[in-house]
């Protein structure tokens, strides 16, 4: 898992090409989720799958070494390891989902009441819809990505 000797050039090239496509697809799924197939959960799992692909093909430390340009951190021994960062992603997501729900209370509605705004005559788009549920969905996305990647990282490091 942590070695990158036994993956073929084909696999590594395909991973390089496919990774951004998957991530863009995931983001598209996240944003269109309210009206078309998609949503925070699917987008989150897809993103995690993309990073999982990098883990499988290039090894665990590649992400930190090559992409973030810092020495790889063994999980839990380091204060600022990558699992910490995944962990704060989870925290942020939970706070976003719950906090967004709590905003409704300030307006006198029940917890987690969601609203939708429609903007007419937006260039290119015509009618444009913004749902407060998107904030909630973003929270779901962050939690799912953070949690799955944490699991992948620590289980992979084992």
């Amino acid at each position: 898992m942590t070695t990158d000797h036994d993956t073929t050039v084909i696999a590594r090239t395909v991973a390089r090409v496919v990774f951004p496509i998957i991530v863009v697809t995931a983001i598209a799924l996240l944003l269109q989720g309210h009206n078309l197939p998609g949503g925070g959960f699917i987008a989150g799992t897809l993103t995690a799958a993309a990073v999982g692909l990098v883990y499988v093909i290039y090894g665990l430390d590649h992400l930190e070494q090559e992409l973030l340009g810092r020495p790889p951190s063994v999980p839990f021994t380091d204060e600022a390891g990558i699992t910490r960062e995944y962990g704060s992603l989870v925290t942020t997501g939970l706070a976003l989902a719950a906090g967004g729900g709590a905003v409704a209370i300030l307006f006198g509605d029940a917890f987690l009441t969601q609203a939708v705004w429609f903007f007419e005559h937006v260039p290119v788009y015509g009618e444009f819809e913004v749902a407060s549920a998107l904030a909630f969905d973003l929270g779901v996305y962050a939690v799912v990505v953070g949690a799955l990647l944490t699991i992948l990282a620590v289980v992979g490091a084992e």
Partner: protein
Amino acid sequence: MQPTAGIILAVVALPFLGAAAVPLLYRVIGERTAYFAAAVAAACFALIATQFGAEGAISVRWIPALDVSLSLYVDGLALLIGFLASGVGVLIFTYSGGYMHNEPGKPRYYATLLAFMGAMLGIAFAADLIALFVFWELTSVASFILIGHYRDESGQYAARKSMFVTVSGGLFMLIGFLLLHWVALDVASVESAFRLAGEGSMLASADAMQTALREQGLLVPVLLLIGIGAAAKSAQVPLHIWLPDAMEAPTPVSAFLHSATMVKAGVYLVGRMRPLLVTDEWVLLFALLGLVTMTITAMLAVTASDIKELLAYSTASHLGLIVAGYGIASSADAHIGLLGAETGAFHVLNHALFKATLFLVAGIIAHEAGTRAIEELGGLSDDLPLTAGITVVAALGMAGVPPFNGFYSKEFLFDATYELAAHDGGLWWLLPVVAVFGSIFTFLYSIRFLMLFFGEKPEELGHVHEPPWSMRGPPLLLAVGAGIVGLGGITATAGFHLPIEEFVGRIVESSLPAGEEAHFSYHIPTTLSPPVLMSGVTVAVGAVAYPFYDGIRDGLRAVRDLGPLRPNWYYNGATALMDTNEIGPQIHNGLLRTYALWFLGGTSALALAGYVAATVSIPTFSGLTVTIPLGIVLVVAIIGAAAVTGAPSHVAGVLTLSILGFMVAIFYILADAPDLALTQLVIETLVLVIFLLVIDKLPAFYGGSKRWMLVRDGAASLAVGTTVMVTVLLSTARTPGVPSYLDHSLKSFFIERAPPPPEHGSFIIDSGGGHNIVNVILVDFRAFDTLGEISVVAMAALSIVTLIAMQQRGEI
């Protein structure tokens, strides 16, 4: 005056927000986080002060569909606990700034302490049984973390013990609450069956509730259950054993949680429930419990060899006094009940003032003299003159010597027990006797504590330095408070009444039946009456016995060390039994398959039993036609499932299992559910990856199974399958809570409400506004469920990290 909703909400929310900010703030301002926390506490104190004199309930809708709302209630008792939690909080945080100077784990310490303060304020103002319970358990959790602050062996033992006793006590209380709720459902004048205080609540119709409880035969069970909860929290005999061990916590924590506030939650509950449940059974239970606790723990305090241990037992003893006070009432004579309530209410205040002071003094001694052993201390007044002065006021208050503050509340107790005995006669005469007997020991240990500062100074002690002002100021302020209460009695004798009397009167009224007024007043007695005589006997016998203190102590120690009389005898015996019995290793034997079996089997059994108990009938379903593609998918899925059982290795098994998963995904596509299909596909892939990652860690456990194992596993699989199928059938068939005009159909409700209506403005809130019904269900209609689910996901990640981290550190 009605309370202001925003202010009371802010009081409860501020400490939690502060706690959340501590970890970040600590990186910036370091040690000074103590003063930030003190500022938060001061803000809460100021906000509560603006509500002084208010009475009434406020309510914020939380989940109206389930009739859940956050209701808070303000009255005298709530304000008292609120003032104690925030006011003592200010002093404790300031003191911590000096005391915790070189200690580890400060961000955790301050965050937990702040969260504790929020939970305590929540208990004080909660008007709803569920909210009360949640805050109640939160204080137990905070206490657990703080007792285990130093993470050593004894600290862990103490933390576990306190968690075990107080949390399980809380669970008894929860059952009591649920019984109350169940009875309240049938009482017409109770509008919201979880509401404890305020309009349309249980307390507002206490008489009807009491009649209903008696008719259902639930009065005694509810009393006992709530009594256990209160006794566990307030360290009443025989559940007092956790409190002395809790002294493992840093001293400011002991002063805050284990004397001034958290242990007061139990007596607060007794005081709060008093108008609702006060009956003859109530008197029998709480008057006895309180007096027995007061006496036994006062004797244990005399046996103590450590100053914090002495204070811990003494705290339990004084809480016993408060419980006894609240316990005393009489259906025939309202005056006795009034005296009882006055004892409880006044002593909550007095005890917080003198005991928190003494704990802080103990902290100073431990910090500066380097020892807490009573034997090694003495003559400290030369080096610590100010601290000695503080201790004189506080310790004499604790001893009940006039004119210090504890004297007055003890007078009320003596008066109440005497009146009750004079009224009912017979065995009730034991109450005043026990009260005096226990008070003698209180006098003894109080004087012993005071004598740490006088008499001869041991050679080894050396010169003791004065602590910094951040450690001297808080106990000084508290002692001044205690002194003022004491002075109030003198001025009242002269005819000038301090406003404290008005305030305590309001606290007393919280524990009296609705409509009764308390004109509270206290003063130095000027005529000889039975209670005065009782106080006189206490002080005189105490003074005569004090020279023989060491002999008395050794005698009590000898009795204490006799087998079953040892305070921890039953706790250590029970926990040892749990460690050594035969059942444990059967259930958790370290094999994953055993855990899975117990877990799945237990869940299925509970769920199926629930269905049987509710006598549900499995709904019929029709309209299912199997097309050819669908048929092929299902057949392949079944073949895949069957093939898993025969797979020769783990890898092959996992790969075969994924056939099943992908077939389910195709099934979703055929059923026009692209969202589900997408999710299923991605999850299947991820699961495959994770499986392959862990698979080489598993033993090659294939083949060679015995017949009974196969039968057992087959039965378990069947049970799980049945449970899942029945659950799916039942949960998709009926929709509780959907109005009948929607045809009781979940489907049509979602189809109608999810997309934006054809005619709509630029802002809509009452429908989902999205065409993807699945997503709208997840993020809008059922957002609360989703919130729960992502919490579970986060929790799962957390536990995996913890497990693997523990394994790497070699703990498991």
